[in-house]
């Protein structure tokens, strides 16, 4: 019995009237966990019952704690007939299992019924007592933290990034079980909701086990998806990146701890304890070493069911990475040999200093600035950096052997993993060395019934195949890792398209290796924070580090340099010297699936670029259908790619970030939607213009037509350059707007597809010898294409948009944010539409949706729609569904920084942030007491005078702004805590001080009175609002005031207007957090430090 779950039912409010006669309700509550059920007394005749129950105690295995939700059912007591259910609340207690997350769930939670929606609220208290049991990690993985955020969470530091974890579980879909014919829709929905809850819990637990096995303590970039395969079952699958995270100390206590105490102290002990069997160190006392010592063997493990053989093989050579280093690099050799004393990182510092002062002959003198910088931050990075630089430059040849060696070194570290994949999209500085380009793989499968849920082999094998393909593409690009990796499916009847994509990259081994490597950039840049709290950074080190920081001239171009061998390019590419450093080769365009690295040097601003495509397909069955789809896919992707490229050129930009290509399959068509954020990377060459050419040059009117079009295109490019402030510093080699097309190629995108178990076929997307800048108008289709290109309506003034975390080129966000979800379903009544016609319809649908968003959010101007995430689906024949979730954030126009300063300012700001954080520690009590009780916030405002003043303020200010101003302050008359939601990993102007756990909720809503609920729009509108409300309520109950990295992963809408019915399934996820406003942090500090902070702040900004 390793855990005791305790629940107390306090009260209810706003209950529905269940007894028509009295207009009242006799409510009672059933609390169920696993197979144990408790009941409260009946509270007669009230819509606001006060149960104030005793503590219901469940003594359960922690395995169950992870898998099962606490189920609370509110019922109306009926003496004569069966009790009527009012609704249910499912509470995921996972956040309570980790000491760093929430400690109690307490608050008003909406009572939800799948037929009626929210029906009142219930106030509950839930706690968990975990017993200390050494064997408790047998089947459970309590304590592993999960984050949806695809970067290192804000108040943590990555000690180690272990790598890819994946898992999937399958089950029969209750909706398709025989019993469904005789049970009510409500019972069926509830069975489904509960099953998915259970499956997600199980999945999370299993992933947690893998993480523990790898020696990690957290999963970052956790992405869980459902595949509703209909008859063939229900698949819940998840991928993520296992990490060892260390909390950046925020507790006042840490600052006063004796210097030998561990900063990782507040990480829950059992996390490491798991290492127990076979690892002697695990039993030792908590020391700062522990994380590193464990990591020393972790890269050697590989996790996959299929990899048992490699597993043993690898474990024999756990220190491969180190061995590679030794021969050529004495300094590092000593480092690796000093493993037992890794707790003294500065021990080898002197050695390193000498190293940098006497560079090995292999290094070329021109790279010394960079070397100096690197030498301060870390020796190994120095080597890698040097090698990276050597790769493209003229001097690079000499560095060949070293380079190869080092490449091998990191590579081997990665190759030990079966899949060197990372679901993260942004990384600690210095982690990402080079980017190769987008790698993607798709495969079309025929679904068959899953016979044995315990053996989900087929599904596993499918994904296996795809991942292998991704891996081989990555190798072809000369890279050893995939970053920004994600997987998705699209299902129509029995056909399923599996897709995976990511960005091939070369990573620094810094976070993947063992040893004292955790003194990374971030740490070295915040000596003030850590000099008090941690022994590892002593004064000496701090000063070196800060020195290094000052001297550091961020080149911001390194990641653009090609990772592949110039002489052995995997595809024809147009390479030029980097426009920043002029030393190394860069490609002409770069497509990636990740966020723009913070150190990137960019010119101007970015913008959302979308390629949209619709292809008709014949109706077919089974194999034939799969084949047809399979044959269509390459064309679809090719065209999407061409569109993207053209639109990118049209905006005068040269790189895409956050690229997400979604292919959706329907019975009679395929939809493709590619979204990305275009930017102008300063390092890459300026893109040439677009040249239109006709096939029949003899015709004069035709030529005129073409020259008109050419002029239009040129004008658009010029205008876009102005809008996005793209003025590259200087153009040397290329002549801008040159009508002479330059040879180029575009196959940064690798993909292929296989039908069922077909051979993997690779298709070169490059246009071959043909020049891609030239758009040939040889038929009407091409003309249409160009028209489509030009008809993308420009974003209205004051608006920017991107699908990445932040808008490249905008920094000074105000605190006004507005998250929203918008869904549109479009019916194609014209049955006989051509591809072109469909394209137009689809494109217009997206454009109109964007237009509506801009209009809706006009009060926030100047603002940027960030993380614009489009999801397309074909719910039925002739229906296209587009769902968007994004956040609008307003910014201060006046302060928009010029590009050149950005990276420097950014890092300065970061430093200040971290100093603030220290301040925060001192005031943590104050602010946390403020936060922990939402009532504390509200009580102040219930003064009549305060209220009056707030009424007066019902103001002419744009709503967003006025809202934000009062966001966290006293709320007059309101007893509901405000919960922010954002798809981003941060909240502008605020500091996240605590992650409370993952929010992963699944809801079904059904109606048999569609008309009465306002038709399909009314139905879905209510449902989405309810989902938001439930997410907010659960976050508030955890003690949080925001959800970050929020996403709506699934929105399946089905209707049958003839029967007046509709059903919708929504799955949302995110990270519950507590944040404090930076201004409040400052204002709250009365200590002398505050003055210092503010001064330094002033200097910084």
């Amino acid at each position, binding site marked *: 019995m390793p855990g005791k779950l305790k629940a107390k039912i306090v009260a209810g409010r*706003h209950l529905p009237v269940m007894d028509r006669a009295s207009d009242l309700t006799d409510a009672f509550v059933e609390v169920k966990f696993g197979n144990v059920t408790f009941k409260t007394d009946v509270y007669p005749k009230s819509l606001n019952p006060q149960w104030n129950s005793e503590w219901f105690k469940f003594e359960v295995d922690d395995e169950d704690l992870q898998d099962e939700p606490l189920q609370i059912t509110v019922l109306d007591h009926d003496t004569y007939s069966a009790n009527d259910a009012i609704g249910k609340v499912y509470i995921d207690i996972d956040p309570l299992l980790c000491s760093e997350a929430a400690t109690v769930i307490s608050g*008003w939670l*909406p009572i939800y019924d799948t037929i009626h929606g*929210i029906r009142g*609220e219930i106030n509950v208290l839930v706690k968990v007592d975990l017993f200390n049991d050494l064997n408790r990690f047998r089947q459970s993985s309590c304590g592993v933290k999960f984050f949806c955020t695809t970067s290192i969470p804000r108040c943590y530091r990555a000690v180690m990034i272990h790598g890819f974890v994946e898992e999937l579980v399958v089950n029969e879909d209750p909706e398709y079980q025989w019993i469904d014919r005789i049970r009510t829709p409500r019972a069926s929905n509830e069975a489904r909701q509960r099953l998915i809850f259970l499956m997600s819990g199980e999945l999370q637990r299993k992933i947690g086990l893998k993480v523990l096995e790898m020696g990690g303590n957290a999963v970052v970039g956790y992405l869980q998806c459902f595949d509703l395969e209909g008859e063939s079952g229900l698949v819940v699958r998840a991928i993520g990146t296992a990490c060892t995270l260390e909390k950046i100390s925020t507790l006042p206590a840490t600052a006063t701890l004796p210097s030998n105490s561990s900063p990782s102290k507040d990480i829950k002990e059992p996390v490491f304890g798991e290492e127990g069997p076979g690892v002697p160190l695990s039993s030792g006392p908590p020391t700062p070493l522990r994380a590193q010592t464990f990591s020393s063997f972790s890269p050697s493990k590989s996790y996959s069911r299929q990899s048992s053989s490699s597993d043993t093989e690898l474990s024999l050579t756990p220190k491969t990475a180190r061995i590679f280093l030794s021969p050529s690099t004495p300094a590092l050799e000593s480092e690796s040999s000093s493993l037992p004393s890794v707790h003294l990182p500065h021990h080898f510092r002197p050695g390193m200093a000498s190293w940098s002062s006497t560079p090995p002959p292999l290094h070329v003198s021109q790279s010394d600035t960079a070397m100096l910088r690197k030498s301060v931050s870390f020796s190994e990075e120095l080597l890698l950096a040097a090698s990276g630089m050597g790769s493209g430059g003229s001097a690079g040849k000499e560095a060949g052997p070293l380079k190869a060696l080092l490449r091998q070194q990191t590579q081997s570290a990665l190759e030990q993993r079966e899949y060197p994949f990372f679901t993260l999209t942004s990384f600690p500085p210095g982690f990402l060395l080079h980017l190769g380009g987008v790698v993607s793989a798709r495969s079309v499968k025929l679904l068959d019934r899953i016979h044995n849920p315990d053996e989900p082999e087929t599904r596993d094998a499918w994904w296996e195949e795809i991942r292998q393909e991704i891996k081989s593409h990555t190798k072809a690009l000369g890279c050893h890792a995939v970053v920004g990796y994600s997987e998705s499916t699209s299902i129509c009847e029995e056909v399923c398209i599996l897709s995976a994509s990511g960005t091939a990259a070369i990573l620094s081994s810094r976070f993947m290796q063992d040893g004292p490597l955790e003194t990374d950039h971030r740490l070295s840049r915040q000596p003030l924070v850590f000099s008090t709290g941690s022994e590892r950074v002593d004064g000496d080190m701090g000063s070196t580090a800060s020195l290094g920081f000052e001297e550091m001239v961020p080149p911001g171009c390194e990641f653009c340099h090609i990772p592949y061998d110039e002489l052995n390019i995997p595809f024809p590419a147009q390479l030029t010297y980097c426009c920043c450093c002029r030393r190394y080769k860069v490609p002409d365009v770069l497509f990636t699936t990740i966020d723009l690295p913070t150190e990137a040097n960019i010119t101007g601003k970015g913008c959302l670029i979308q390629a949209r495509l619709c292809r008709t397909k014949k109706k077919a069955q089974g194999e034939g259908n799969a084949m047809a789809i399979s044959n269509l896919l390459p064309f679809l992707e090719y065209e999407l790619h061409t569109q993207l490229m053209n639109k990118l050129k049209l905006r005068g930009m040269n790189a895409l970030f956050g690229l997400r290509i979604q292919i959706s399959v329907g019975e009679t068509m395929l939809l493709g939607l590619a979204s990305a954020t275009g930017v102008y990377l300063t390092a890459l060459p300026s893109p040439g213009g677009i040249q239109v050419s006709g096939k029949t040059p003899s015709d004069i009117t035709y030529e005129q037509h073409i020259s008109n079009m050419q002029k239009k295109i040129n004008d658009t490019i010029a205008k876009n350059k102005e809008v996005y402030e793209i003025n590259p510093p200087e153009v040397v080699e290329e002549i801008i707007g040159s009508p002479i097309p330059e040879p180029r190629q575009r196959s940064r995108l690798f993909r292929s597809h296989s039908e069922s178990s077909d051979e993997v076929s690779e298709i070169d997307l490059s246009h071959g010898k043909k020049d891609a800048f030239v758009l040939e108008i040889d038929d009407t289709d091409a003309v249409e294409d160009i028209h489509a290109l030009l008809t993308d309506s420009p974003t209205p003034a004051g608006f920017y948009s991107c699908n990445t975390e932040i808008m490249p080129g905008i920094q000074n966000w105000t605190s006004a944010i*507005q*998250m*929203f979800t*918008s869904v*549109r*379903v*479009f*019916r*194609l*009544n*014209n049955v006989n539409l051509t591809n072109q016609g469909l394209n137009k*319809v689809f494109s217009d649908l997206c454009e*109109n949706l964007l*237009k*509506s*968003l801009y*209009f*809706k*959010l006009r009060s926030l101007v100047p603002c940027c729609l960030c993380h614009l995430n489009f999801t397309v689906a074909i719910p039925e024949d002739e*229906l296209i*569904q587009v769902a968007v979730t994004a956040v609008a954030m307003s910014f201060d126009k006046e302060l928009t920084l010029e590009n050149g300063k950005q990276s420097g300012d950014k890092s300065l700001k970061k430093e200040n942030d971290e100093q603030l954080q220290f301040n925060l520690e001192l005031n943590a009590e104050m602010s946390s007491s403020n936060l922990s009780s939402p009532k504390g916030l509200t009580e102040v*405002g219930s003064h009549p005078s305060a209220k009056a003043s*707030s*009424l007066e*303020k*019902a*103001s002419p200010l744009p*709503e967003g702004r*006025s*809202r934000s101003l*009062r966001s966290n302050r006293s709320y*007059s*008359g*309101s*007893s*509901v805590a*405000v*919960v*922010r*939601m954002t798809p981003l990993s941060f909240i502008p102007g605020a500091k996240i001080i605590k992650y409370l756990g993952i929010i992963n909720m699944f809801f079904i809503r059904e109606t048999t009175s569609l008309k009465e609920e*306002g038709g*399909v*729009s*009314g139905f*879905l*509108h*209510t449902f*989405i*609002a*309810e989902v*938001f*409300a*439930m997410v*907010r*309520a659960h976050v508030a109950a955890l003690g949080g005031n925001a959800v970050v990295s929020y996403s709506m992963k699934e929105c399946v809408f089905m209707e049958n207007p003839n029967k007046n019915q509709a059903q919708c399934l929504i799955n949302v996820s995110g990270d519950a957090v507590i944040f404090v406003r930076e201004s409040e942090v400052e204002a709250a500090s009365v200590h002398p430090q505050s003055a210092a902070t503010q001064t330094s702040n002033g200097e910084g900004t």
Partner: protein
Amino acid sequence: MSVELDVFVGNTTIMDKEVYQLWLNGYTVNDAVTLRIEGGVMEECEVLLSDTMDQYRTFQMCERLLHHPAKLANQLLFQIPPDRQAMLIERYYAFDDLFVREVLGKKLSKGTKKDLDDVSSKTGVMLKSCRRQFDNFKRVFKVVEELKGPLVENIRQHFLLPDQLARDYAAIVFFANNRFETGKKKLLYLTFQDFAFCAGQLINNWTLGAVDNMMEDMDVDLDKEFLQDLKDLKILITDKDLLDQHKSLVCTALRGKTNVLNEMEANFKNLSRGLVNIAAKLINAKDVRDFFIDLVEKFIEPCRSDKWTSVDVNLYLTHYTNSAHILDTFKHHSVWTRYMGVIKSCILKMYHE
């Protein structure tokens, strides 16, 4: 080809004040779109239509909550900033003076509701809006009817209305409860604000709550004891000596201060009889209903036909009230003050030159 479904949901509920007003005014979505295009917010009909439908849906979903404004603050479905909440409530409970003038003093019953289409066509306020306003009156009436304590305060607390609006509602409730006649032709010149002011005076001075806030009875009904006492004032007109004495005192005091002294002197007995008779009759519920019409017939009209100015009326009533206290045999000073204070301010408000 058609948009089958189109929704937009913000974490913070987005509400456009302008669209809200259109919705409150009872415009259909299409009319609202037309008006918005004319207003120049945006030209594209499609975008506006989508936005307007969204907003209308949001308002409809909120309407249920607006019926119990206190719920708006602690519901979880919509995250609405407090200033927006206040705006929503205030505007929802706002009413057209023209409309309220029509139903003021009427019984808030189904019968009255049925006649709303006539009111709508008469006032030009859309029927939908009329119904909302009428239902608001009725809802407020029902809630405060059963509550103890000060009327205005009750309304303000239960419906979270700003002070002025709460006072107006108090007036409406008070009028509906006492069924004051306001629709007679002679009263048509009076605006709602005139009546609201008078209601305020009555509530503050003549109800039970006016004497003792803690009384279990409410502000809605007039203080029966006081009404009873008012009968004693009759002595002012029945006792001939007292009447003469009163008249001479008033006229002496007014000498040289007005141009209509002669008319005042001539009319004194008539006017005094009128006012005192009103007082004496107030004990009968039926006569309470005619309170305003009586004031107009017995006092305002005679004065107006003699071309008194407001200043004259004020002067006259001041001295008329004060002089009574000097009368030797007149003992009902407190009742007189309580009565005349209200009468004076009502008449002054109702006296449009």
